């Protein structure tokens, strides 16, 4: 395999524009549409039942309406025979079995309860707070670690790249109205880990090249480093994407959105580790001296 010579940094202005546009769209969507939080975060009641034969959802709704349940959302879940019933905060301990009884009422329908979940509004609110805090904490720890192992400019670059990935993935979920539940939060945190992994590999190469190559401008050096790690970046992203596709198609409905968040996030993460972090390093004018303390002779030379 030959090392490619793609002039990535020549596209930096165009790429920056794309990134900024994506982020602005994401923020606009998050601000206006918000995120469609799942049961874990909003609180409420959810009942999943399985029918022997696929029911008409309108019939199910009518039945529930007659049973006195208002404000109910009825949806298929994964397959036409599986139905999910969501309710706002109305909860009694026997609700699950009551709803089941209501659904069975329609003549000789055989319905079985697959799961029922109830989350109190208070718990949901706390979880939302905790999740947000977790994300911030993750970013903070990453920033400290990179600052210690590399250097401050690298730490800023990688954290900005992470915020870029997380914001756009959240924006994607907001824009298309995908449900954001606890597994998606887990996916976002895993994404922080994964995307950082990618960025660090590139930064590591940049640091190494600064040490071994002399007489090369930062601009060319960064280009070279990205090209050198490009093969690895693409292969690892591919194998990870393969497994995520498998989870997306075979993992079942309950981790569908988890896989979706990671699939999208890793595409963005791969893009950002090639373009965003390196771009920022160049903007912040990273130099050899940032990584290697200036040798003594140079100092002496400057003396009159």
């Amino acid at each position, binding site marked *: 395999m030959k090392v490619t010579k793609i002039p990535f940094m020549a596209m930096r202005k165009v790429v920056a524009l794309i990134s900024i546009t994506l982020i602005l769209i994401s923020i606009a969507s998050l601000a206006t549409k918000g995120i469609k939080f799942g049961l874990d975060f909003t609180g409420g009641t959810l009942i999943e039942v399985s029918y022997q034969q696929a029911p008409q959802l309108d019939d199910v709704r009518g039945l529930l309406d007659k049973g006195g349940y208002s404000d109910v959302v009825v949806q298929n879940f994964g397959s036409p025979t599986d139905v999910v019933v969501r309710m706002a905060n109305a*909860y009694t301990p026997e609700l699950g079995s009551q709803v089941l009884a209501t659904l069975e009422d329609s003549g000789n329908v055989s319905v079985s309860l697959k799961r029922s979940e109830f989350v109190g509004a208070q718990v949901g609110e706390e979880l939302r707070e905790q999740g947000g805090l977790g994300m911030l904490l993750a970013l903070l720890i990453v920033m400290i670690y990179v600052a210690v192992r590399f250097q401050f400019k690298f730490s800023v670059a990688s954290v900005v790249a992470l915020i870029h990935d997380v914001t756009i993935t959240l924006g994607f979920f907001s824009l298309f109205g995908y449900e954001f539940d*606890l597994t998606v939060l887990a996916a976002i945190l*895993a994404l922080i880990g*994964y995307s950082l992994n990618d960025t660090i590999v590139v930064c590591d190469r940049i640091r190494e090249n600064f040490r071994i190559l002399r007489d090369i401008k930062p601009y060319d050096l960064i280009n070279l480093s990205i090209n050198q790690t490009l093969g690895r970046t693409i292969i690892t992203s591919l194998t990870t994407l393969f497994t995520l596709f498998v989870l997306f198609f075979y993992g079942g409905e309950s981790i569908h959105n988890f896989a979706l968040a990671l699939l999208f996030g890793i595409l963005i993460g791969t893009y950002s580790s090639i373009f965003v972090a390196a771009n920022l390093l160049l903007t912040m004018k990273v130099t050899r001296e940032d990584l290697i303390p200036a040798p003594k002779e140079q100092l002496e030379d400057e003396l009159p």
Partner: protein
Amino acid sequence: MLNKYPLWKYLLILLVLALGVIYAVPNLYPDDPALQISTQKATAVVDERTLEKAKKALSDADINLKKAELTSAGGTLRFNSGEDQLAAKPVVAAALGDNYVTALNLVPTTPNWLASIGAGPAKLGLDLRGGVHFLLQVDMPAALKQKLDVASSEMKAALRKDRVRYRSVTIDNGVLSIRFLQEGDLDRAESLLKDQFGEYVYSTRQNGSDYYLDAGFTEASRKSIESYAIQQNLTTLRNRVNELGVAEPLVQRQGSDRIVVELPGVQDTAAAKRIIGATANLEFHLEAGLDDQGGDVETLNFRNGSGRTARLDRDIIITGDSVSDASSSFDENGRPQVNISLDSKGGQKMAKVTRAAVGRNMAVVFIEHKSRTRFVKTDGKLEEVRKSYSEKGIISLATIQTTLGNSFRITGLDSPRESSELALLLRAGALAAPIYFVEERTIGPSLGAENIHLGMVSAQIGLLVVMLFMLVYYRVFGIFANVSLVLNVVLLLACMSVLGATLTLPGIAGIVLTMGMAVDANVLIFSRIKEELANGTPSHQAIHSGFNRAFTTIFDANITTLLVAVILFAVGTGSVKGFAVTLSLGILTSMFTAIVVTRAQVNLVYGGRPNKKLYI
């Protein structure tokens, strides 16, 4: 430059891998659905005769039994399928009677020699096994109010005894206020109560012509009441869960005022919830005399809905807390009854009161502390408002024929179910403070089995796809990476089993994701080797520096991911924690397999030979 490991290094790697295989193997043996028979009673034992009885009942009911055995915990009946197990439970429970507890369980089928070295399958989470998860909130304001209720009657008695005149006592928002008309009474009351009830802080105020003495909790006493309430509730809940007959239940404190209860394999969630959340208790009162009136008498309804009422003396003889044992049975007329034995202190009290009251009526009052949740819109936001209240009803009113002692029975219950649940609650003890459900998840057994199936299928396909890709792309080195990848999964499973970590569906997703990411370290190393080769470095030198130079990159990249996984573990709950566990363990095991195990293979194949072309 020869790429060779010393012999001891190969042996060490082999040892680690062999241990990994041994501890991962039990996961291949699926658990048997089983019934666990145990007893809480001192008078009953689980022995061969018990098992014979169960076996006979099962063969009468035409249910296939796989194996019956005695263990240290009691008896175990193994079945071939989950359906057999479910059908068998009521049959066995009926055959063995009230003295035994029958619990649904999954029993490992790990061969003995593996079990003897501590190997066993990884625990399955509720989403793979089915069962219920509850998060209960202990109602602390109610606990404090209960404490003040008790204090208020004690303080009143103390004031009356010393002839201090007070007008009224009210409890509001955790503060007890006593109203006086004279300043002198206030001063005497203050010094008296400060002396006798030191655990409260007192303050005085004047409102119009009235004087008030306010008693509130000190920070220390509030804390101790709260911690007592949660400890006591934990104990009670554990007792109740044991009575329910659930194998491997989890009852655990979470945070300052919450309790998690997990019951794997439970089918009848409604019954479980009724028993866990029940705050029922009993109180024994004498019927008030005709000339008793005012604040010392309360009028209560009968529970059977007949509309009858009775006037009762407010003083409590004993409560359900004095009950040492209770069991349900039927009286001569076939009506449900509860037989009660009191502890010695309760028995003495009961004897003392009833001796002086032969011929009077005694009432058994059933109390339930409940709470009602309503949603109120304030400032456009929906807010939960919770109101606690007690429901009291008389279950029986009977004439005291003779002095009552330590044991007696009560009747007047609606159904056998009610009598057996009341007996259970009396045995397990009352909750020190009311609780309510803030989270509940029920996973049916069919969904659990489906999730296991989905997880297994995605893991297999995921593994296959990644291996195929590596093989095509890296050829011989792809084989090395694939061997390492498979060993990584084996080691990961072994670690899960040894650490007793719980496997959940997101956990399986974590394993699948790890497969995709675990090859990363090998990809990094191999790209380096290719680069070196492209620069014209001889193959041995290329291998050596490829491994060496990729190491710091792999290390830095993995440590940060590990840090994030740890945060995820701290933030997440339940099944998501399972994801964090497999992700972080996967990072650690993959670093070992991708670096050390791959290197060992490369060394074994290329090590002894002179430089030659590498198929990479």
